[in-house]
């Protein structure tokens, strides 16, 4: 099976738990929310820290999110265990042309320097607004991609929606209190004003504005534990199914159904499962389906029906803490307390590309292998595990994983993506999915290997240096032992040890 290979660790890393990393909407940087009350901004080009945001929160920063569509200026929202959310601004390098921004100091520049001790440089990030209102820890926040709205959620069981009326002026437009436990995650639909929230009460709720009030339009039940993360499918990926062309009538029908339903939702939970949910489009009174276009439905009544469409293959053996649905490939990545990262893809059932075969980024196309029996519609596709890695952060739990565009010099093509994972070790790591022959060749990297090494020839030269000449599957498991320095003594740790 193709593997996931850790390419680099962003440096310097946080000395305490890091919770989440958010890729910038258009710049090659990411922001990492850390329990040391800072946000670290790292470059995805050279894996170095560019700047630090600190001084705004009294407790751990649990989450951060970039505002989309901010041209010339980066706007980051931070959510903290201190119950407040912060809005931070910084002009982008070379931006600000023609903008009136006399107070902003450009002298420190965006390029960033030696990140270790640049506390002095940090005033390039301006703390713009503090959003107070929640009674307890903020767990997650998200900007709407379609409107000037920010959603926040908290242990106080509520979801708040804030509207940015004008710069730095936020107004509360809704306080949604239907959940019966901590709200762990909020996520916006990519093309509609539709918000999803995941909770400690084991449920997912969907929210829309009804006339003038935001209200819950769907309750998704089924998870057997805290739902840690929810995310919508990218609009562009709706009804794009891997493993071949749409050939049979059944496949055509499914594509039609998908297009009607629009973006699906993925959720992951303490119950170790990952589930995909799909909207059931309403039919017109005469029984004929509504028009195909997903973007224009208007519901006569407010409530929506969503169903659990699929469960991803069981890979995790501990709570699944985060999933990320690629907007470019439709693949889902997951991670959690067991320290694994897995990548899944939906395929036509029976397509030749299924199973444990080596594959490139473009799976071979043979969609006609489908046997044509009249099984349920859902059974004509299946989710397969494309790749996985154990102990992605050595022995530590991994709190978050996200797809991001590749930006380092090893990039092969423009659409190439990497996985960025964030762990209890305070580290943020960048990984790629590798084909089988590479997976055998590339030794799992130690923390000291960072940056550089991306081109194939570098990989080859690495192979000469690696300890074991060839790794079979069971060697691989044993291979994972490494030495880690903690405090003053060197301890021998088996990465697979906790089981």
């Amino acid at each position, binding site marked *: 099976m193709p593997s996931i290979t850790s390419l680099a660790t962003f440096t310097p890393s946080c000395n305490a*738990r890091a919770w989440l990393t958010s890729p910038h909407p258009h710049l090659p940087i990411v922001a990492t929310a850390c329990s040391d009350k800072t946000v670290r901004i790292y470059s995805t080009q050279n894996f170095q820290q560019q700047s630090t945001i600190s001084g705004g929160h009294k407790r*751990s920063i649990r989450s951060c999110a970039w505002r989309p569509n901010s041209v010339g200026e980066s706007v980051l929202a931070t959510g903290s265990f201190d119950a407040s959310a912060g809005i931070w601004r910084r002009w982008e390098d070379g931006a600000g042309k023609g903008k009136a921004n006399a107070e902003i100091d450009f002298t420190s520049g965006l390029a960033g320097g030696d990140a270790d001790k640049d506390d002095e440089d940090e005033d390039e990030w301006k703390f713009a607004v503090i959003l107070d209102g929640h009674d307890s820890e903020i767990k997650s926040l998200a900007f709407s991609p379609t409107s000037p709205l920010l959603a926040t959620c908290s242990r106080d069981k509520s979801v708040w929606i804030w509207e940015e009326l004008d710069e730095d002026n936020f107004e509360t437009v809704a306080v949604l209190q239907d959940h019966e436990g*901590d709200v762990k995650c909020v996520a916006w639909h990519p093309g509609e004003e539709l918000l999803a929230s995941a909770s*400690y009460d084991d449920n997912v709720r969907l929210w829309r504005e009804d006339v003038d009030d935001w209200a819950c339009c769907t309750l998704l039940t089924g998870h057997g534990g805290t739902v840690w993360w929810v995310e919508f499918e990218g609009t562009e990926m709706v009804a794009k199914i891997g493993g071949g062309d749409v050939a049979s009538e059944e496949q055509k029908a499914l594509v039609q159904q998908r297009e009607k339903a629009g973006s699906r939702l993925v959720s992951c939970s*303490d119950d170790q499962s990952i589930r995909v949910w799909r909207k059931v489009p309403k039919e017109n009174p005469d029984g004929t389906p509504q028009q195909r276009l997903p973007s224009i439905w208007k519901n006569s009544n407010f409530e929506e029906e969503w169903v659990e469409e699929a469960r991803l293959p069981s890979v995790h053996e501990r709570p699944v803490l985060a999933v990320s649905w690629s907007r470019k490939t439709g693949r889902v990545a997951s991670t959690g307390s067991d320290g694994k990262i897995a990548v899944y893809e939906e395929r036509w059932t029976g397509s030749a590309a299924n199973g444990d075969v080596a594959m490139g980024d473009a799976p071979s196309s043979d969609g006609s292998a489908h046997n044509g029996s009249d099984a349920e519609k859902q059974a004509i596709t299946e989710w397969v595990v494309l790749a996985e890695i154990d102990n992605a952060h050595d022995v530590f739990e991994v709190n978050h994983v996200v797809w991001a565009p590749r930006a380092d010099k090893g990039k092969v093509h423009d659409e190439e993506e990497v996985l960025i994972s964030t762990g209890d*070790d305070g580290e943020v790591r960048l990984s790629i999915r590798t084909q089988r022959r590479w997976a055998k060749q590339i030794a799992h990297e130690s923390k000291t290997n960072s940056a550089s090494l991306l081109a194939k020839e570098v990989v080859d030269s690495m192979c000469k240096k690696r300890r074991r000449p060839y790794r079979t599957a069971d060697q691989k498991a044993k291979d994972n032992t490494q030495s880690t320095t903690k405090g003053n003594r*060197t*301890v*021998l740790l088996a990465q697979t*040890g906790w089981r």
Partner: protein
Amino acid sequence: MDAEKDNANPTIINPSDLPSRRREAPTKKQPRIFDSLAPAYPSLADPLSSPEASDSDSEEEAREEIDEQEVYDLISTISDPEHPLSLGSLGVVTLDDIAIKGPTSPRSRIIIGLGVKVRLLNCLPPRFRIDVRIKEGTSNTADEVNKQLGDKERVAAAMENRNLINVVNTMLATCE
């Protein structure tokens, strides 16, 4: 809640009667006749034994083994938040099952659970995942408490709460 709050007459066990690995150590140390023939595995404390040198077969043995006794030793000296005694001497913690049972109130149960969890998180290597659960059938709020203790985000946030830190530190002050 008040009715359940406290057991006025908990069974107190003399600390010197509690099981502990330390007292067993001398007997285990006695050399046995074939010891010299057994292969010696590199010691963790030995700076000369580099991980590279050990082949994959010896890795399992070289790992620090942690058993129930060690967990017991780590947590039995925690003080009960409502009694001036350790969890071991109150019989709250027993070696047999490392289970937590009365004489405590629901709130106390969750704080004890938190104390146990924090103690183990601090003392055991990070490769361990710590699941602290209330023993089945001992509490009607067990599910709720178990869920809270299993929620890493809540535990993390609790450990930033000054009041809770103080309570847990007081409990753990009696530990070595």
